[in-house]
């Protein structure tokens, strides 16, 4: 049920586009109203959520550290696993965001040698799959800008020529599209096949994977199988991105299915785990230097507390303490 529900959801989206455009001819709804609404929901949702997160207090200095912190000069320290200043935090964060460094140290635990010995072994498949997925998705998204912008910026040609160096039929094969489909399929199968991962997976873990899987699939079908009229598609998308939507173009049904899937992804984004893209930057466990022994980290929640120091206590009760013979700091 946890897998069936998101699967039916994605199939439902495809069917809605199929019926809405193919049978009911609601081109304006599916081509203009829904994409614009989804984009507005995406923008507002992400901004509001980040502002909400930005308002929350960070009461403690809690960076996660997996290396020796800065100490005496003769003790070798681990700069990027235990950053002591902002520069090291930025390097650590960049390695995390761009290369998923913490996933690289992922381990799996298994019983080996007739189940007598517990072995922790390096497990890099999730890291590799995740990296392939995120980077190929990023480049696929970047390549889409050729359909959003008119004239096409020169820098995009470089991305395309590097991505499309394999001439396999027409049009040229873009590696990233294929890698995206393979890696998202791997990430989905991984969730289903590994029993303990399946057990902790929820519908909202499966749904984005399936959604992206179908987006990649419809995109590849459009490009390599059905070969939609790219000139019409571009005229339409440029229309959307210059706030002058025109629907006179002959866009295939498959394009509307792709568009609706993307719209759902955009609208779903701010309310889902996909917000990890902003959350990774706002994690106190990653964006703080481990300097709690050098710099006092004051809890912003602190309110002025009325304190009564020992010195004042002794001043108040000196005579009485003296009479019963208690030791005093000041006579």
């Amino acid at each position, binding site marked *: 049920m946890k897998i069936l529900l998101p699967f039916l959801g994605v199939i439902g989206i495809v069917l809605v586009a199929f019926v809405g455009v193919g049978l009911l001819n609601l081109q304006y709804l599916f081509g203009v109203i829904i994409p614009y609404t989804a984009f507005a929901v995406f923008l507002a949702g992400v901004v509001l959520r*980040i502002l909400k997160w930005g308002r929350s207090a960070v009461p403690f200095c809690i960076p996660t550290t997996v290396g020796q912190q800065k100490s005496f000069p003769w003790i070798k320290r681990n700069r990027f696993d235990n950053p002591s200043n902002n520069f090291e935090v930025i390097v650590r964060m960049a390695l995390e965001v761009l290369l998923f460094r913490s996933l690289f140290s992922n381990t799996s635990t298994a019983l080996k040698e007739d189940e007598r010995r517990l072995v922790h072994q390096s497990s890099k498949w999730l890291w590799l799959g995740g990296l392939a997925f995120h980077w190929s998705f990023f480049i696929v998204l970047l390549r889409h800008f050729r359909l959003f912008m*008119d004239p*096409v910026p020169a820098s995009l040609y470089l991305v395309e020529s590097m991505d499309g160096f394999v001439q396999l039929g*027409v049009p040229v094969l873009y590696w990233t599209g294929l890698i995206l489909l393979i890696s998202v399929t791997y990430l989905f199968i991984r969730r289903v096949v590994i029993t303990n991962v399946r057990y902790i997976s929820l519908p909202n873990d499966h749904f984005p994977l399936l959604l992206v899987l179908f987006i990649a699939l419809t995109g590849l079908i459009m490009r390599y199988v059905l070969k939609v009229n*790219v000139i019409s598609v571009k005229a339409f998308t440029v229309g959307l991105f210059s706030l002058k939507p025109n629907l006179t173009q002959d866009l295939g049904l498959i394009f509307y299915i792709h568009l609706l899937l993307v719209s759902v992804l955009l609208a779903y984004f701010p309310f889902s785990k996909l917000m990890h893209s902003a959350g990774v930057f706002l994690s106190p466990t990653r964006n703080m230097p481990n300097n709690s022994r050098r710099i006092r980290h004051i809890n912003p929640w602190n309110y002025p507390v009325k304190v009564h120091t020992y010195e004042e206590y002794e001043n108040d009760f000196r005579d009485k303490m003296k009479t019963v013979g208690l030791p005093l700091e000041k006579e």
Partner: protein
Amino acid sequence: MPDKSKIFFLLVIFLVIVTSPFIYNMVRTPAGVVVKLNTPVIDNMTVKQCILPKEQMIHDHMKILNSWRDDVVRGNHREFGKIDGVMYEKSLQLTCLHCHSNKSEFCDRCHTYASVSVYCWDCHVAQKENKL
């Protein structure tokens, strides 16, 4: 820089990136695409027709050219067929570019518009165009 202004700074960068296609199209004003068909050969045709109907040519020209290449290079099948008694050859330069002699105003217009990289010209040499 205090944490709040850092977050605000990154948020502004995010918004600029996400809305960049809108900003770009506002600054650069999209020109769209117009294909020119008035070459001397086409102008002299009594019945203006391509080897297949226009819609099919728009949709399938890349598939046709790709299969022509395989037919000619690998199979030595050069004849496309007769239209009105005239034999048409499976040839980019002798058939397509015979009429559409204006590559820069015909082929290139759409391909540049949608940033489609064609690899016809990896092997073929585009013939010199006479400026109209």
